[in-house]
C-alpha cells in the first residue's frame, strides 16, 4: 500500500468520523447530567434537512449551519420539556423523537431531493498544511472539521477543570443531593440537553452541507445510533470519544479501502462494518460491568422531580 493511499484513507476517516464526534460530544454532556437522549438520529436528520434548505434558499452555508443548530436545539427542547417538565420516560421519549424526526425530515425535504448546494470548501492552513503527510491528513479540511478539532479540548477542559463541569457531574451522579445543596438540577439538565441538540444539529448540517452536499431521505444512515454507542465505548471520556469517532469513521470507509485494494468482498458485507463494530464494542464494554458502573453517570436515565423533595 503506498503512502498516498494511507494519507487519503486517514483523511477520509477524519471526515467520516467528524459527524460522529460532534454528536457524541453533545451527548456526553447530556449524559453527564444524567439524561439519556436516544433522539439523536431524528434530531440529526432534522438538522440536516433544515440546514440544507436554509443554505439552499439563502445560498449561504453559514446560515445553513446556524439553522441546523437551532433546529437541533428546538428538537431537544421538545425532548427536554417532555422528560424534565412532564416526567416522561427518557428512553421512550428519545425513541419517539427519532421516529418523529425521521418522518418529518423526509416530509419537509421531499421537494429538495436532487438539489445540491455550495457547501464549505476545504481550507489549507498555511504552513501546517505543508507538513509532509500530517499536513495532508489534518490541515486540508473545511471549517467544520477544524471546529471539531477544537471542541473536544474545550469540552474536556470545561468538564474536568471548571466549576461548571463539577456541577454537571454532581447533577448526573446524585440529583437529589445536588438539589439539596442548592444546585438547580432542572436548569442544568435543560442546558445540557439543549447543548446536545445544537451539537447534533451541527452534525446534521455537516452531513447535508459538507459530507455529501445534498439532501436525501434518511441520509444519516444510523450515525446517531453509532454516536450513542460511541459515548459508552469511550466510557464518557472526551479524549476517547475523539479517538473512537475516527476509529468508527475508519470502519465506515473500510469497504472503499478494500475495494481500492482489489479485495473481492461483497460491498454490502463491508458496509455493515461500522454497525458490526458497534455491536462488538457494546458487548465488550458491557462484559466489564464493574467498570461500566464506576464510570457511568449514576443517575443516567433516572427521572428527577424537585417537587418530590418536599
Amino acid at each position: 500500500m503506498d503512502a498516498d493511499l494511507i494519507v487519503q484513507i486517514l483523511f477520509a476517516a477524519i471526515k467520516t468520523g467528524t459527524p460522529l464526534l460532534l454528536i457524541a460530544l453533545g451527548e456526553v454532556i447530556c449524559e453527564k447530567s444524567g439524561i439519556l437522549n436516544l433522539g439523536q438520529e431524528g434530531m440529526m436528520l432534522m438538522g440536516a434537512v433544515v440546514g440544507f434548505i436554509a443554505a439552499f434558499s439563502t445560498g449561504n452555508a453559514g446560515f445553513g449551519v446556524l439553522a441546523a443548530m437551532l433546529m437541533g436545539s428546538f428538537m431537544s427542547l421538545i425532548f427536554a420539556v417532555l422528560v424534565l417538565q412532564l416526567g416522561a420516560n427518557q428512553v421512550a421519549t428519545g425513541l419517539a423523537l427519532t421516529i418523529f424526526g425521521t418522518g418529518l425530515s423526509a416530509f419537509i425535504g421531499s421537494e429538495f431531493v436532487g438539489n445540491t448546494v455550495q457547501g464549505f470548501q476545504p481550507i489549507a492552513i498555511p504552513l501546517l498544511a505543508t507538513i509532509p503527510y500530517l499536513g495532508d491528513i489534518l490541515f486540508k479540511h473545511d471549517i467544520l472539521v477544524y471546529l471539531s478539532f477544537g471542541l473536544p479540548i474545550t469540552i474536556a477542559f470545561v468538564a474536568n477543570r471548571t466549576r461548571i463541569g463539577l456541577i454537571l457531574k454532581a447533577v448526573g451522579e446524585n440529583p437529589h443531593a445536588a438539589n439539596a445543596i442548592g444546585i438547580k438540577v432542572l436548569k442544568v439538565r435543560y442546558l445540557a440537553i439543549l447543548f446536545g441538540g445544537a451539537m447534533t444539529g451541527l452534525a446534521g448540517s455537516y452531513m447535508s452541507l459538507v459530507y455529501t452536499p445534498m439532501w436525501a431521505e434518511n441520509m444519516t444512515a444510523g450515525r446517531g445510533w453509532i454516536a450513542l454507542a460511541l459515548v459508552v465505548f469511550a466510557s464518557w471520556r472526551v479524549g476517547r470519544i475523539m479517538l473512537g469517532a475516527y476509529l468508527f469513521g475508519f470502519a465506515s470507509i473500510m469497504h472503499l479501502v478494500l475495494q481500492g485494494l482489489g479485495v473481492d468482498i461483497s460491498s454490502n458485507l463491508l458496509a455493515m462494518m461500522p454497525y458490526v463494530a458497534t455491536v462488538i464494542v457494546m458487548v465488550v464494554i458491557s462484559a466489564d460491568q464493574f467498570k461500566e458502573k464506576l464510570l457511568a453517570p449514576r443517575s443516567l436515565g433516572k427521572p428527577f422531580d424537585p417537587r418530590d423533595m418536599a
Partner: protein
Amino acid sequence: MAETLKKRHSIPRIELANITKQYPGCLANDNVSLTLMPGEIHALLGENGAGKSTLVKTIYGVVSPDSGDIIWDGKAVSIKSPSKARELGIGMVFQHFSLFETLTVSQNIELCLTPLQLTKIGNLASSITALSEKYGLNVDPDSYVHSLSIGERQRVEIMRCLVQSVKLLILDEPTSVLTPQEVSGLFQVLRTLAQEGCSILFISHKLHEVTEVCQQATILRAGKVIDTCEPAKETPASIAKMMVGELAEQDAGYSKKEGLHTVFSMTSLNLATKHPFGTSLKDISFELKAGEILGIAGVAGNGQDELMAIISGEDERNTGAALALEKQSIGQLSAAQRRKLGMAYVPEERLGRGAVPDMSLTENTLLTHSQGFIKSGIVQWKPLTDYAKKLIAQYKVKCHGEFSEAKSLSGGNLQKFIMGREIGQNPKVLVCAHPTWGVDVGAALAIHQALLRLRDQGAAILLVSEDIDELFLLADRMAAVCDGHLSPVVKTLDTSIDEIGQWMAGTFIHSPSHHSEETTA
C-alpha cells in the same frame, strides 16, 4: 457553659413562630414554635411522621411553610432555598448523605460554596486540613468519597458546614449509621462546636444519646409541639412517654433462648462483590439454629447487603454446598426455590425489593404467598384480599385499604406490612434486615413481639441491623461484620455493647495487611 452563653447573647439564634405546613391529607406541622440560643444543643424528638423532617427542611429552605415566621438573629427572614439558608449560616447534615461519590472530598465541599466564599477561603484543601485538625475530624481533602466509610462521610458533611462558618448546624439522625465509638467522637465535635457558640439542632430516635448531649428538647407528635424539656433532668423512659403519649414498654428485656438443631448454615463463603462500591465477603461461616435469633451487627456497607443477597438467592451465583438448609445444599437454587423450602426474606430496601411500589398491598402479598392463593394458575382474589386485610389489621398498618399502592405508604407502615407478610408464611428460616428501621416506637414493639413469637414457634431468625440496642434486645446470639469479615458468634448474654462495637470496627480481624489487600481486590 450553655447558661453563661445564654446570658451573654440574649438574642436567640433562631426562633420559629407558629410554623404550619399542610400536605395533601396530612398536617405535617401545626403551629410549631421553637427557640434556639447560640451555643445550645437542642434535640428534636418525635415518632415517625411527627413532622420533624418537615420542620428542619423548613429551616433549611427545602420546604416553604404555609404560615408562620422565622426569626434569625433577631430579624424576620424568609428562607426560600437551601442556598439562602447557607448564606445565613445554616448548615445541614442529612440522614441520607448528600455527597457525590465520584468526586473528591474537596470537590464535594467546593460545590457547596459560592464563588465569593471560595475566593475568601483561598486554598480550600489547606483550610480543610486545618479545620480537620482543629476539630479532630480526620478528613483528607483528596480522597474520593466512595472510598470513605459512613462515619468518614458524615465528617465530610460536617466539614462542609464548618467551612462555611456555620452558626446553626442541623443533624438528621446523625448517629443511626455510626459505631458506638464513632458516636462518642461525634459528640465531642458537637460539644466543641457548641462551646464556640454554634447552635445545634439534633434529630434522634435514641433517647439515651439525647439525654447525654442535648441541653433542651422539643417533642413533636402529629405535627404539634407536645412538650419541651431539659433532657439532663429526664430519663429515656420519661422522654419516650412524652413522645408516644402513653407508657411505652421500654426495653422490657425479653428472655433469651438456646437454639436447638442447626437449620441453616453457611460454610467458608468467599464472594467477590459485583458492584464497584460493594464489599466482598471473606470466608464467612456460621450456623443458624431452630428457635433462636442470631443478630448481625455492623455499620452499613460492610457486606450486609451482599450477605443478604447471597442468602436469599437474589445474587444468583451458585454457591453450592456453602449454603445449606437442613443439611441440604441450597446454593444452586433460585430465590423462589429457596422460598418454597421455607425461607423468608425481608430486604433492607422496602420499595423496589421488599414490595413493588406501583402494586397494591394485596398484589404484593401474592408475590411471596403464591402457593395458597393460586389454583390451577388462577389467582384466588377473595381469600387473597381477606388475607391482606388481616395482615393490615394485625400489624396496624396505616393505609387506605388493601388496594393502596405500596408506594403510598410511609416507610414504617410498609415495613410493618412486609414483616407481617413474611412472618405469616411461618418460615423455617427468616432472614431480615433492619426490621424496625424508620418504624415508630409502638410499631417496633409489635414487630419485636411477632419476631419473638416466631422464634418461640421454632423458626430460625437471622437479624441484620445497624441498631445495636435492638440487637441486644432481641438476639440470642450475636456477631458483627466488618469489611466483609464475620466476627466470632457469641451468646448475647456473654458479650457487651463495647465488645460488639469494637468488632464493628474490625478489631477481630487479626492481620491488618491481609485485610487491606483484600479491600482493593
